[in-house]
């Protein structure tokens, strides 16, 4: 008998083990066919089987070879726990089970650092869950009625001037604008975050875009979507619907060749420009699209060959915040005739307040929004070490930035948007509401959208394979066979329904505190059951 080698990988070394019941298996083969990771295969196995086929019990022991499903013991083709096998199995014969004895993280570095998608699997703590809306209007002032009263759920996107800077003149007792002011759009306080065509499948991106169109055109909710750094379809760039999209520019400038070529043909302005400096999931690291996902259409939109596409960690030629304002903001503002707000997105960091202060003091007043992305933000691909060990929670950072502005009387002048983990536990409205009370003008979310489309990835190491091009749900892949699994219309509908519920839930939170406008900075409405969090955020501690 061959001696087993200790270095051989066994299925017990992997994060997920396949639990398979040969007695239930009808050998239809659906599970093997649907596993995009090739983590299971069919094997012939010799089995002893005792059967009785007569009218009277007459057990007969048979030795036979029959096909079974077996897990592959491999560090490349391993089970991600996505559960597609369980989903397709007609007879409940197979499912992945989490393996508490896994050694996978330790063993998987033969070809360099582990790369994956998803969120941090270590720092998934939730400050927001110890915060509740605790200042309820009762006898001091009446609560509003979420169903009966009207609510003004809009947030600014663009550089807001102080009242003294507004170029008004008085004509016949009325204030009349007499000069240029930076463009500001009032949008829905939930922005669909930047997930590129490339990171997402065309179908997934289309489903999100379709939801945006529907929410705007049919539901009257001015939800805006950031394109991500991967360009946009030319037809969309040249359509009326461009007004619902925030075009992103990041250090790789992917997609901008087409965007610039489309500019003379644009019939409307985009909703905004978002300069991406950093991302909460992998701060200080650039964008990454592994070659497995750089399909022909992605090559075409981005104007690149098939190769792993890495956006540099930094914008070329950017040495300081002043340059960021002068070069990037000014050029993007100028490109659209100073009609389109230009905002900036950074990963939350110990230095966020300094950045925000600099932007607030910029004499050109051309930064139209500061997007802070926390450690719990998702990504299509990153080094696992970045995902799990770098970053900064967003909640206290939003609060710090808001209070820094308060200190200078500049709150509201550069709208603050917070993201990274919004909706992580399913209720984005509650998260958004609390973030706004702490000082955010709105929130952005991405992961929750693809989860609505069907992504089953989570913070306990489930799936997280967005980087592989093998997304079993057809969301983060360009493989046409996988992409077909995603129903665009149903996906879009799921997002629309979620946002409509979000809107209702937001009203259900605004009404009890007696607010018909968004409670930006109303920290008095919040209390925390965690003393440390209460102290850190300057809200009431309750027990």
């Amino acid at each position, binding site marked *: 008998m061959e001696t087993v080698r200790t270095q051989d990988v066994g299925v017990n070394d992997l994060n997920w083990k396949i639990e398979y019941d040969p007695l239930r298996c009808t050998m239809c083969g659906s599970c093997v066919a649907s596993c995009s990771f090739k983590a299971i295969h069919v094997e012939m196995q010799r089995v002893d089987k005792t059967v009785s086929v007569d009218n009277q019990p007459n057990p007969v022991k048979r030795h036979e070879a029959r096909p079974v499903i077996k897990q592959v013991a491999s560090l490349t083709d391993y089970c991600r726990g996505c559960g597609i096998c369980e989903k397709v199995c007609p007879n409940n014969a197979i499912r992945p089970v989490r393996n508490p004895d896994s050694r996978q993280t330790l063993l998987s570095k033969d070809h360099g650092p582990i790369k994956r998608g998803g969120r941090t699997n270590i720092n998934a703590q939730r400050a927001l869950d110890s915060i509740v809306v605790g200042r309820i*209007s009762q006898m*001091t*002032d*009446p609560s*509003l009625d979420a169903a009966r*009263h*009207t609510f*003004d759920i*809009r947030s*600014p996107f663009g550089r*807001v*001037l*102080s*009242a*003294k*800077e*507004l170029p*008004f003149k*008085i004509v016949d*007792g*009325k*204030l*009349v*604008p007499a000069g240029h*002011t930076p463009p*500001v759009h*009032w949008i829905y306080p939930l922005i669909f975050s930047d997930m590129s065509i490339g990171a997402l499948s065309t179908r997934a991106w289309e489903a999100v875009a379709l939801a945006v169109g529907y929410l705007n055109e049919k539901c009257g909710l001015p939800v805006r979507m950031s394109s991500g750094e991967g360009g946009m379809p030319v037809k969309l760039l040249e359509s009326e619907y461009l007004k619902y999209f925030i075009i992103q520019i990041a250090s790789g400038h992917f997609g901008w060749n087409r965007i610039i070529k489309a500019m003379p043909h644009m019939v409307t302005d985009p909703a905004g420009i978002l300069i991406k400096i950093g991302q909460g999931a992998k701060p200080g690291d650039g964008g990454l699209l592994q070659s497995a996902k750089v399909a022909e259409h992605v090559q075409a939109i981005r104007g690149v060959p098939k190769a792993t596409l890495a956006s540099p960690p930094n914008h070329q030629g950017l040495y300081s915040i002043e340059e960021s304002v002068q070069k990037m903001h000014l050029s993007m503002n100028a490109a659209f005739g100073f009609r389109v707000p230009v905002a900036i997105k950074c990963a939350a960091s110990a230095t966020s307040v300094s950045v925000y202060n600099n932007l607030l003091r910029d004499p050109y007043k051309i930064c139209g929004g500061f997007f802070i992305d926390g450690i719990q933000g998702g990504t299509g691909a990153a080094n696992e070490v970045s995902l799990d060990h770098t970053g900064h929670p967003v909640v206290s950072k939003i609060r710090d930035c808001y209070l820094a502005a*308060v*200190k*200078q*009387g500049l*709150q*509201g002048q550069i709208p603050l948007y917070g993201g990274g983990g919004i909706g992580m536990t399913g209720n984005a409205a509650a998260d958004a509401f609390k973030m706004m009370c702490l000082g955010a003008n709105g929130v952005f979310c991405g992961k929750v959208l693809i989860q609505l489309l069907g992504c089953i990835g989570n913070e306990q190491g489930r799936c997280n394979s967005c980087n592989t091009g093998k997304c079993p749900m057809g969301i983060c892949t360009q493989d046409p066979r996988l992409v077909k699994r995603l129903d665009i219309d149903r996906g879009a509908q799921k997002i629309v329904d979620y946002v409509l519920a979000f809107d209702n839930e937001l009203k259900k939170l605004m009404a009890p*505190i*007696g*607010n*018909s*406008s968004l*409670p*930006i*900075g*109303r*920290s*008095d409405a919040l209390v925390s059951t965690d003393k440390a969090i209460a102290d850190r955020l300057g809200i009431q501690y309750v027990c």
Partner: protein
Amino acid sequence: MCRIGSIKSKVPVQPSKALHLMLPQQEGHDNSGFAMVMQDLYGIFSNYKDKPLLSLACTQRGEQLVADYMDAHNFVRLAEWIPIPDKRPGLDIKAMPYYIFRNYDYPEDAAFMSKEEKENLLLDTRLALRKILDEAGEGYVYSFWPDVLTLKEIGDPRDIATYFHLWDDNGCLCAKSIVAQCRQNTNYDIVRYAAHPFFLQGYTLCANGENTFYTKNKEFQKSLHRGYIGFESDSQCFLNTLHYVHHELKWPLIYYKHVITPLPFEEIADREDKDTLIAIRQSLANLEINGPNTIIGVLPTQEMITCCDSKKLRPVVVGRTDDMVAISSEVCGLNEIMPDRDQTKDIYPNEREIVVIDNNLEVQRWKQ
């Protein structure tokens, strides 16, 4: 719920009129105090209408601190009225030892000052006195402004009136404009400064209700103007905003309403002046108020105004005769002081109006 009231009259009226306006509404308030601001004064102050009048409640030591400061800053004492209280036993009043109403002449160098510089001098003087008295714990200074008298006290308003002989109608205190309120702060600590009406550089304001955007108002106002201090009551924010919009930004009064209760975005989009309204809404988002409230205010021009929150969650009514206009939380107050008025002409302002009463008692209703 609090009750507020005000009277604007062609002939000077005495404080008892304001008390009669307020007392029928007592079911709605707890009779825990009385505060009023009188403007356009007659009676004993009629000869000093252009000279700043200091309204002070303090101890003997506090009076000395004030006198020292005013002397050091070359204010010249012109006239003074120190009410001799009726200290009969059993009165429900937590009185301060002294109430001083004192006219000063400006320092000599004020002769060369512009109107604005004088206004700032008066404000800075009041703020300095407040600081001195606060630090020493020796009293309160409510207003320091020409032709304006402020009285605030804790206790039953009827007893407070007895204490100050306000029922006597002795002609001592008369004014063409009185704003009054009969309750102490309930949401926060009882502090004399927290009692409405509030006064700042010619602007008087009292409010009935709750400002649920108090925190964001306060955080913003603190950096807007040195006069925006205290914040003992959420209603002070209404006054600060009125002062900021009308006095600092010098915007026409109607925009006050657009700042505190902006139109919904959908309505703004249909307006001709949408660019103006949206610019105001976004630049002064932190001055928006929310929650139920009604405001009564008086401008430096002595015009009186009233308006409500954007959902009209608090009541207010304006009644008028040929010689008098009164604003009241409840109509029973009007019935008490002007029973013969034509009630069909009473105005119940809606949530989008500012009602302005000019010095000829013409009542204008401005739609936002």
